[in-house]
């Protein structure tokens, strides 16, 4: 009986255990890894992937996928740059990119729910379209400067030793966990991902729920874009190149099924942390860039294999 409980705990928190294991191994084997400075850095870096992963998890739980986040991430930073050029208003600089990105998410949601196009294709097209618009606005990929000092606090400031982006991320994750577990919207997401037809039959407003998951995904990406703009003091459309893959990897490492219906908000944060730690270790070890991909990919593959062994029983159940 006790054995069974431990097993359930392990399979539910496999990602957290992986994080702890990697942390311990890295602390022993990598010099300079175990320091407060490095940990603060880790959390700063994780915050962006983590915040995008919140929206992504909602989308993936409803059996969708959002590939446009990478482009949207860069676009949000460009928006910050443009607003800082004309208005110099911190509040607008934070709120406008989020609204605009949510608007793009709404368009994606419209295409997915009303036009019934596969989310993979819609977001793929959106990725191209958003990058195109961004290039148009910035005359082919110029960097826009962000000079407002008070705005930079979002990314560079800290309360005590905890950096503000990490606080934003953790707060967002707490809200998202509550939404996904204890609200009608969250439960509907799981129901839709589990069985779309059954959800329709049960009277769940499937289209509305799906639509809002894409809006949330857009808004979260906007927030992450604001943070990156504050962190690099600039807005550039090319910032988010390939970011969508990091985000999806983080979500899947968190045990969320791409088929939908199963997943845990908090685990996505641990997944994002794993991705960042791997990058961090490679940086600290000063690995040749020739090897970098092999190590990142190899570790990802190894974690996936271990995770699949842990989850196998649940996975088979969820699939059949």
């Amino acid at each position, binding site marked *: 009986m006790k054995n069974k409980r431990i097993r359930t705990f392990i399979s539910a928190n496999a990602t957290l255990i992986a994080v702890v294991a990697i942390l311990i191994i890295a602390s022993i084997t990598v010099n300079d890894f175990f320091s407060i400075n490095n940990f603060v850095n880790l959390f700063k870096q994780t915050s962006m992937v983590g915040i995008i992963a919140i929206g992504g998890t909602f989308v993936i739980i409803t059996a969708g*996928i959002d590939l446009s986040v990478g482009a949207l991430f860069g676009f949000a930073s460009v928006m910050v740059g443009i607003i800082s050029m004309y208005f110099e208003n911190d509040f607008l600089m934070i709120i406008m990119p989020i609204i605009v990105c949510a608007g793009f998410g709404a368009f994606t949601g419209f*295409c997915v729910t009303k*036009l*019934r*196009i*596969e989310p*993979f*294709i*819609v977001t*793929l*097209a*959106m990725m*191209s*379209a958003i*990058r*195109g*618009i*961004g*290039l*148009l606005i910035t005359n*082919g990929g110029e960097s826009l400067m962000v000079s407002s000092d008070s705005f930079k606090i979002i990314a560079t400031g800290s309360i005590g030793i905890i950096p503000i982006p990490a606080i934003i991320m953790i707060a967002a994750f707490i809200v998202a966990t509550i939404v996904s577990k204890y609200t009608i919207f969250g439960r509907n997401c799981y129901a839709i991902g589990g069985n779309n037809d059954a959800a329709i039959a049960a009277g769940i407003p499937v289209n509305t729920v799906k639509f809002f998951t894409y809006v949330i995904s857009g808004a979260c990406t906007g927030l992450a874009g604001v943070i990156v703009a504050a962190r690099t003091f600039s807005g550039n459309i090319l910032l988010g190149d390939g970011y969508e*893959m990091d985000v*999806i*990897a983080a979500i*899947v490492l968190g045990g969320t*099924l*791409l*088929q939908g219906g199963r997943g845990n908000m908090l685990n996505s944060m641990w997944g994002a942390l794993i991705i960042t730690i791997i990058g961090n270790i490679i940086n600290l070890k000063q690995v040749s860039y*020739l*090897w*970098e*991909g*092999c190590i*990142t*990919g*190899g570790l*990802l*593959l190894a974690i*996936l*294999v271990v995770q*699949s*062994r842990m989850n*196998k029983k649940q*996975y*088979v159940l969820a*699939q*059949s």
Partner: protein
Amino acid sequence: MRISNEETGMMNNQSAKALKRSEFAKKYGAIMVFAILLMVNIIVTPNFISSITIYNLIIHSTTVVCIAMGMTFVIAVAGIDISVGATMSLCATVTAIMAENEYPIVLCVFIGLLLGGGVGAFIGVMTVKYTIQPMVLTLAMMIILRSAARMVSNAKTVQIVDPNFLGISGTSFGEIPIQLIYILVFTISFFVLAEHTVFGKSVEAIGNNITAAKLSGIFSDRIVVFVYLLLGALSALAGIMAVSRMQNCNPSSVGSGIELEAIAAVVIGGTSMSGGKPRVMGTLVGCFIMSIITMMVNMNGIDTAWSMLLEAAIIIIAVYIQSGKGTSVKKVKYQKAYDKIAGGLIDEK
């Protein structure tokens, strides 16, 4: 609540009609979009009607056709492979380096294809045995293989000088480029494979319902592994053809972004991403649509930023025309008929 025979008949009739229409859209939607694009181009683009345009269209789409054919089967078994670009790069690099060291060209190509097949088989076995979701698995493989390709060549561009190697995509018979023959061979052989063999039917069965396929005695594991193996070998072939045309092999740039182009082509062609019937002919037209967009952009000198927007719009519209009238309409019609009957019953009460 009882529904009379007549009403059931009406519902069936309506849904059958919608089903027919959806089948029509799936079969001919891509061709319609292609025809529209062709007409627009004939009107808008200067010098569009010439043999050079057709020549370029064929040469440009060969690599995508090669990969998209394999991708059709992978997507038909409800899988996906985004590592094809990296596989292309690795196999092409290995082949190019072997050719540089003056091994016989047949051996080089054979090793390249073998490597591609091996990579594909590895992905297939991992998805089947460890039930890792193909999207993330191939994402990890994409990172590894791209890095491996750089390691093999030490991140240098390999020049290709062997005339036999260059002949793989440099030969032409009079006006006809050899790529046309490749495309014809691929299309015919894969069309036969999809439509007239047990393998093709098994792929369709697995895509529709893997549990049912297993229960009806299909060796689904073997077939899924073989499908990935096929795609791996085809990616290797595409890589070899691509570097042979470019006359050099840069491991960082060969095949970058081709996975998304191939997937878009397959979906425009009418193969459902949740699995089902592999539509080889549709895929071919999808590839031509992707190529014609690129050519339209190049020949009109459209700015990159605008061309990205254009591409996005055309993809969305093409997929909408091809799939929007699909199952959704069937459901809506069914729902409407049902509502009518249900409403009638309520009125009776």
